[in-house]
């Protein structure tokens, strides 16, 4: 995907995640960046997916104000493991990103809290179960939408490239 479009999408996701969703007030912030990593990996494969996980995780870390490197690590792993699955699943079905986001949220949050706890024992080792499941469900609901947006942008740039090739041929 064109890096400019990806940057714009990332900016939009961050602003929605930090300013819009907390403000409309249901107490949970969907992890839009995580859904982006999963969707991007499904469409681009393991290598670019892992790099995207690293980059988006790092951006999230720089905005978190502490534990820098933590999201970088968990999201890189997420990109990598989604990439491992990508070849063996039929991912044109929009329920696939949904299911992966549900499972991804749970594994991602567990790993996150275990690492946070190991560096600062004032934090509990496990996230509260009810909140975790609600978050996983929220992410799963939003995943098809984000997947479709990213797929749409990918297709747009693919068509653009095809057009360029054809115009060069004639």
């Amino acid at each position, binding site marked *: 995907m064109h890096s400019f479009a990806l940057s714009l999408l990332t900016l939009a996701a961050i602003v929605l995640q930090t*300013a819009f969703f907390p*403000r409309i007030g249901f107490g949970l912030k969907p992890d839009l960046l995580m859904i982006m990593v999963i969707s991007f990996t499904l469409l681009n494969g393991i290598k670019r997916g892992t790099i995207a996980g690293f980059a988006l995780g790092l*951006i*999230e870390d720089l905005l978190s*104000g502490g534990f820098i490197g933590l999201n970088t690590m968990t999201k890189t792993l997420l990109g990598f493991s989604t990439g491992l699955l990508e070849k063996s699943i039929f991912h044109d079905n929009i329920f696939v990103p949904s299911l992966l986001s549900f499972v991804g949220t749970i594994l991602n949050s567990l790993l996150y809290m275990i690492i946070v706890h190991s*560096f600062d024992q*004032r934090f509990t080792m496990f996230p509260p179960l009810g909140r975790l499941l609600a978050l996983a469900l929220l992410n799963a609901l939003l995943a098809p939408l984000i997947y479709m947006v990213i797929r749409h942008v990918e297709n747009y740039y693919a068509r653009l490239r095809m057009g360029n090739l054809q115009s060069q041929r004639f």
Partner: protein
Amino acid sequence: MAQQPRGRRLIIAAVIFLVLMGLIFLTARERTRQSLPERALHGVIAPFQKIITGLADFFRGTIQTFAELGRLRRDNQQLREEAADLRAEQEELEFYRRENIRLRAALGFKERRPLDMVASEVIGRNPSNWLSTLTIDKGARDGLAQNMPVISRQGVVGRLGAVRQDSSDVLLVNDARAPIAGVVERTREQVRVLGRTDGLCVVTPYGRSADLRVGDRVVTWEGSAYFPPGLVIGRITSVEQDNFGVSKQGILETNVDFHRLEDVFVIQSLDHVPVTNGAGGD
């Protein structure tokens, strides 16, 4: 690009892992200053956060206004009556305030000066669901500094973490990194209030034979390193034995609803606000 051999890829992954672990270790504790990339990224994001926050408020406000139109007239009438009552009460309180000043002067006490406060708007939250910080639209340019207490009309919000030029992060009361020294209003017993990841706080008394009850109000302690005394932190909603079964601990719900928080005040006038370099908190 040529495919790298498997061994080399593993080494690269291991090095990245170690570097990230080192970074997490270095940034797990409170820092006095954020790195340049962090400040730069916040600088880029803050204007967008402000716009989106404004838009979200506008939509929420418009929808609420239409939904509540019928109730507004009744509320208006009721509020007018309440305002008249409050004016009368205020005059009475003014009388007592003057009397208090006179008596304190007679006793040789120093007059408590009103707090200098900076009003500020909440423009963003921590992207993570497990860390409780928020971003406000005032920073070092407005005279803010790390550790300054942040309050709202409902009570204690938290204290300032990282302060940048035009925005700052607030460590909320329910973040585990910002413990507060409090007292139970009913018994004057000193307690420690520590945040939990589910948005509630754990209240641990310093004395073993503590008397905690559901409904007890916890306020800031006179000797708190950061907060003026007597500000409401929250109410105890349940009391349980601690993990060792030795003493009691309470679960506290903060007075401030952090999900709906829009405006906060940063208190600037405390004489002594320490800047910590290690584990912060009371």
